[in-house]
């Protein structure tokens, strides 16, 4: 269990001391915003170090270091929000930001700020700085291992690119609701991309993963070799792929990363801002059945070391395991403080922001479906003709119409209950509120993804996790180039 003194030390070293800030400065900043009659105000300080190294053509000749730091101040009154940020961590800049943020509220207030008395929620990861975890030679050696493994696997491998990226982030949140919380959030990611060529045909394969830990944990799990093998396997497979079918058919989704389906089709539509505004296709479906009793979906920010995990969200609310769909019935939405207040409910610890320069909003953490009872073999054997999709690039949703897409990068045609041959990547399209009704079999093989997902919403990117067991979806539209031949 990480020591709170580590957090305190990092906060002083990176956030407070350089600009001669103190806990009192933050209180004064809040008091300045609060002295106008607003409902809520918060200040968010962030220091983030990011490093990336890339091997390409067998040479590690590209590396970058990025330092990002600043403070955001927010004030809210009803549905109104005032927000300002500055790259400069100084008492003057914080006051100026508070001045700009409070412009949404009028009228003076004498009342004192509530006392802050926050005990930190349990940690979800260690506090090592991954940037300092290995020295440069070791990082280069790690990338070389990826490169050499991939090249050694098949003569068809023409190009290998691998990127090692890590972030060390220290944040401090103080709010007029008594929050004074600090956190350290490490994040590492290794991604591999391979181009294979045979008889003039070129195909790409990729894989990646990581989590909230240092490089050592990535190495312990054998990630470099494993990711290289996976990328090469997909590239070689795609060299054999035939045209994908076009039309509506039964689709079997593999376990793990294909859970991006849940993220797009269900998750975004259950976020509290869209629910409050009534712009989500799920707005009036609370308590209603949207899936068979075998389907239970949760958003869980508390899983140890996961890419989407957080000890607390960016408003200082502890993260939790929120049940979204229980036995096929919608049971929960995801809230930040603003939307929870307006909907007269509690935050679920999903108030996240890309950085100090962005406003928090309801976002997912790790979203996944619980395991069912069918074996994956049983599910595949049940399909006469369909698509088995196991790798995806990502997806997108229109939460208002409910229509979502996700694009397969590894897929197979199923014929008579057996995998027939690989097909080219294709986009799958469906309708969020109705797609889970078509889930007729849920596998017993729940798996979470390897830690590669980044979710974009209103221009803000945050790391997330997804997962699911193997699923059979009875009808989904597959956007291939070849007409369905029955």
């Amino acid at each position: 269990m990480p020591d709170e003194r580590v957090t305190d030390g990092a906060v002083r070293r990176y956030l407070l001391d350089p600009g001669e800030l103190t806990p009192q400065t933050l209180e004064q900043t809040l008091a300045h915003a609060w002295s106008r009659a607003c409902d809520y105000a918060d200040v968010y300080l962030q220091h983030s170090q990011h490093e990336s190294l890339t091997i390409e053509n067998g040479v590690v000749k590209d590396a970058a270091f990025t330092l990002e730091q600043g403070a955001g101040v927010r004030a809210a009154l009803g549905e109104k929000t005032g927000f300002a940020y500055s790259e400069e961590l100084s008492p003057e800049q914080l006051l100026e930001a508070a001045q700009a943020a409070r412009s949404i509220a009028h009228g003076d207030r004498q009342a004192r700020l509530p006392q802050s008395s926050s005990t930190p929620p349990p940690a979800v990861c260690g506090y090592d700085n991954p940037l300092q975890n290995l020295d440069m030679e070791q990082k280069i050696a790690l990338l070389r291992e990826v490169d050499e493994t991939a090249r050694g696997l098949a003569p068809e491998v023409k190009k290998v690119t691998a990127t090692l990226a890590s972030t060390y982030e220290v944040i401090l949140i103080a709010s007029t609701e008594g929050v004074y919380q600090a956190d350290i959030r490490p994040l590492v990611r290794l991604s591999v991309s391979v181009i294979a060529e045979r008889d003039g045909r070129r195909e790409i394969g990729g894989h990646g993963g990581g989590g909230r830990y240092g490089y050592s944990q990535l190495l312990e799990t054998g990630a470099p070799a494993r990711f290289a093998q996976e990328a090469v396997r997909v590239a070689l497979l795609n060299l054999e792929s035939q045209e994908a079918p076009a039309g509506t058919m039964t689709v079997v989704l593999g376990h793990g990363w294909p859970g991006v389906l849940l993220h797009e089709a269900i998750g975004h539509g259950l976020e509290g801002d869209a629910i409050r505004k009534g712009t989500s296709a799920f707005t009036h479906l609370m308590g209603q059945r949207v899936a068979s009793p075998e389907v239970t979906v949760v958003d869980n920010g508390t899983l140890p070391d996961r890419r989407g995990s957080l000890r607390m969200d960016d408003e200082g609310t502890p993260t939790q395991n929120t049940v979204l769909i229980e036995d096929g019935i919608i049971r929960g939405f995801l809230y930040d403080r603003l939307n929870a207040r307006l909907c007269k409910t509690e935050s679920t610890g999903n108030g996240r922001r890309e950085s100090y320069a962005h406003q928090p909003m309801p976002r997912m953490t790790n979203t996944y479906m619980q395991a069912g009872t069918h074996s994956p073999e049983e599910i595949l054997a049940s399909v006469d003709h369909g698509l088995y999709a196991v790798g995806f690039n990502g997806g997108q949703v229109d939460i208002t119409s409910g229509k979502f897409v996700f694009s397969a990068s590894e897929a197979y045609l199923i014929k008579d209950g057996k995998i027939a041959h690989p097909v080219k990547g294709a986009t799958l399209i469906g309708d969020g509120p109705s797609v889970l009704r078509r889930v007729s079999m849920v596998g017993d093989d729940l798996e979470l993804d390897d830690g590669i997902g980044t979710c974009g919403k209103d221009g803000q990117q945050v790391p997330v996790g997804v997962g699911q067991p193997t699923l059979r979806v009875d009808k989904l539209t597959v956007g291939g180039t070849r007409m369905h031949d029955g």
Partner: protein
Amino acid sequence: MTAESASAQDLRTCVQQALDQARRQGATAAAVSLDRGEGLTVSVRLGELETIEREQDQGLSITAYFGQRRGHASSTDLREDSIERTVEAACQIARSTEEDPCHGLPDEDRLAFEYPELDLHHPWDLDNDEAVRLALECEDAARADARIANSEGAEVRRYDGIRVLGNSLGFMGTYRRSSHDLSCCVVAADEAGAQERDYWHSTHCDWRKMQDPGTVGRIAAERTVRRLGARPLASCVAPVLFEAPVARSLLGHFVGAASGRALYHEASFLLGRKDEQVWAEGITLTEYPHEVGGAASAPFDAEGVATQERTVVDNGILRGWFLSSYSARRLGLASTGNAGGVRNLVLESREPALSWDELLQRLGRGLVVTELMGQGVNQVTGDYSRGATGFWVENGAVAHPVHEITIAGSLPDMYRDIVAVGVEQDRRGSLQTGALLVDRMQIAGV
């Protein structure tokens, strides 16, 4: 240094200091860029103020070279000691990474030691109250349509930025650029309770040249309402007409595949296709980086290389690539001044461009696409499969709105199968084109 006091001269001094520090730390060459900006965004929703956001951005970025080794670092903290640490970080990386013979500053004779004034800087003296008034006017215009049942709001944004770029060859360039936006997103509902959402936005560096708030709101409402009653199609092969705003994405995929990085990674379906027919006959793609007041105009690229007008596709034939100094050296070519992207790439046709009605006539029976979803584009193979929303057209007239379908094909085929280009160009971004009619694509639906 605070935002108020920073003049262009202060910023140039700051860049020069970073360059000097890099030299003192042993770098054989270095390049530094510094960006600073200030803005205001105001949004309203359902007739009420929703957010006021003050933006203040800054960032310094340094590339240090130790012979053929390179290191890169950036920071949003511009205090002197922090800049020094950033320079140190770049030098540290450069010392410990491996050599690449293609690394280095641009060739000196390509740097824009003299560059044109492109009239890109029009600060907007817009305060909170006036911004709220404009946003409300915009949203009200959209909500005037009774079928608009809900709103994601209207937003007004002004932004004013400055960029300073310098390198150890003595190049020091500066330009200011403002960027102003007005957008509106609304929701329409039908009797059955089905909801549709769409939006419109106007953007320009000169706020006087944006569409007025009422027009933006009205277009947003029209685009939303016309989607009501959408239904899927049966799978079929048909011609597809891409509205201008979505046709731009087809140019984007082309730029991706014709960019130096994709070429030296051998991750492009355009590999080895230079001087071949890649687009339909009659189609020309020209980059106009010096267009006065243009959406993506710039006097020099992200490395200080002079940008220039040039034809990349001539009568359908691929004549050039989009290269930075590094990617050019990897390919044994010269930089095209495209470090940091393309600048006003415009698609033009030798055939007469058609009005919207003429395009529908030409389409006859087929699909109009107004929105595309998802990432189903493979730059290596050109395979294309995306979710689509739009209209089904019969006998040159709109029959009904369509959703929950995909369109698929291959980009090389799609580019060659363009049979008509719309006269009305979307010129809001770095990629500019009219609507594009592709003769034949696979549509997947029910």
